[in-house]
């Protein structure tokens, strides 16, 4: 067992699951989407991105690209949240939460690709 692979896989799948956890639930219901979960998803995604730095293979480059996409989408979702509450100054409403959640949905897709790449890599190595 390779500890590096464990950590790598852990963060990639964790990023995906947290992302999924935030995304799941009715698109317009504010109470189903907790900000702490979005925060955790951003953090874990950033860690996963940094873990992918410095791998010069083609697969490594694609890995990095998916994680960068996911991180950008999640950061954008958080910025929309901050904009609604602190810049506009209204509490969260259904319209705005639907933007946040759909952005995180995009990130989820990127994270799923990342997991698929991880599985493909594992299967190809066959050990």
């Amino acid at each position, binding site marked *: 067992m390779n500890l590096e692979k464990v950590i790598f896989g852990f963060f990639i799948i964790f990023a995906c699951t947290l992302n999924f956890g935030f995304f799941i639930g009715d698109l317009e219901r504010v109470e189903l989407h907790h900000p702490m979960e979005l925060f955790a998803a951003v953090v874990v995604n950033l*860690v996963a991105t940094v873990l992918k730095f410095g791998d010069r293979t083609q697969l490594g480059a694609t890995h990095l690209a998916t994680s960068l996409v996911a991180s950008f989408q999640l950061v954008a979702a958080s910025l929309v949240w901050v904009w609604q509450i602190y810049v506009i100054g209204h509490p969260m409403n259904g319209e705005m939460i639907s933007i946040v959640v759909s952005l995180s949905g995009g990130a989820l897709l990127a994270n799923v690709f990342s997991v698929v790449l991880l599985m493909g890599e594992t299967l190809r190595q066959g050990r």
Partner: protein
Amino acid sequence: MDDILFLILRRLRAPLITLIVVYAISVGGLALIPGVDPQGNVRPLSIFHAFYVMSYTATTIGFGELPYPFTDPQRLWVTFSIYLSVIGWAYTLGSVIALGNDATFRAIRARSLFSWRVRGISEPFYVLCGYGQSGAHLGRALDRLGNRTVIVEPNVERAARAAIQDYSTPPPTLAADARLADVLEDSGIHSPRCLGLIALAGEDSVNQAIAIGAHVLNPSLQIVVRAKSDVARINLESFGGVQVINPFDTFAFNLRVSLRAPAILQVEEWLTATPGSACPAAQVVPRGRWVLVGFGRFGRAIAAMLDREGIEWRAFDPRSFEDSEKRLLHGDYTEGVLRDAGVQDADVLVAGADVDAVNLGATTLARRVNPDIFVVIRQNQMQDRALIEAAHADLKFVQSDIMVNECLQALKTPMLGRFIAQLREAEGEVASKVLDRVSNEVGAGAPAAWEFVCDVLQPGMFGAFFQRGGEPFRIVHLSADPTNPPERLRVSALMLERNGVAQLLPDADTALKPGDRILFVGDETAQRLQRRYLSEPGTIAWVTTGREPPRALVFRWWRQWSRAA
């Protein structure tokens, strides 16, 4: 550039993850701990506020407690976070600074910068591998002649020297081994602007590897290599496409030429000297008996030349043992040994040891017993130049001077090199004729040499050959001043090459054919004016008939019509 980015990303992976984790813990914790607002309601900080507070706290800016005063549990957590984040930042910044000082990182950065600068060179350039005495000399000579150079030298200190020497444009320099293919590629040998590669490393095997590598990577590249041993020279010459220069053999060969026909060497030195310098006096080397001090590669090259000329010689060297060679004495450099070698009644002393002090000592001792002896002295170290000059030897061997001369000749005007090779084969009288012709037609200063190619793709040459109604186009036409035809340019045609056959000192009335190459010498103004024959159509017609032919179609019709009328 890719390498450097990936190295930074890879090295900073751990510090960046640490920083993210530190922020996540502090911000997450702060957002979970309950706070109290001025109305007394229990409300935790939002994630946004927690991130804001942590951002200015972690970077030690400290705006205070926002949006309202903290409770004690929050303060406890912030205290903890401050220490945690200071550790995180210290670790990250420390890693960044360590990366900047890291040897690998600096090597990669220097390499990226080098290949970036090489790619940025917009003028023709030469690649110079090896920056020792000869390399430094040649680099500056090329720079003075207006060429850019790219320097590759494995020794870091030597490579750094190029940066502090007086170059008009500082050359890109890389401290690396040019035997590696990727180093050669980064030094620009694939660039269309790369004119040639010169390998002047200290060891023959290195030069050999560089030359072969460069030739394989770019077969059309002109390559000039120094080889001090015969093995390396033969290897490289059989490989083909590489010009090999052996400084010892070159000097020995020059000595032989001046023994036979001093005028040839005189022509050679004059034509390759810096333009404008005076014609050197013919150096008459006496035949007689020779004494060689030092029997290394230099001594051996001279001895082999003397054998071919049938000249009697004696040599001594404290390090050489060769029982088969009876003319070689074993002895240190003392007066007694010099007398044993017969210096008192010798005609020539070759002080060719690889230590300058020994050469100077031997010269002084020999002159004491035989004041009229002809002295050939070898200078090994650049810093001994003044001492060697002070000895007032009749001939001086300086390896770097020979290398610079030979390389420039090979690189700048290959046709001049071919001319000199032809001249060496020819009789001594031809050389005297060359001297007469050049001093009559050009003057006493050393001339510049260039090649004139009758390239019919050039507008001027097309006109000269095809638009003059079959009138022959002669060498003498190229000697007329294109601005004032009755005046002659200060040029002299030395060689004509047609279909690979060379003719020395062609007659001025020789009719030219398309594709001919002519070696001209003359002053630089004449060279510039002569170029008009290539670039401007009608110059030849104007020079020969005194009339500018019409260029536009309408005027040509007009001319024909007016002639017919």
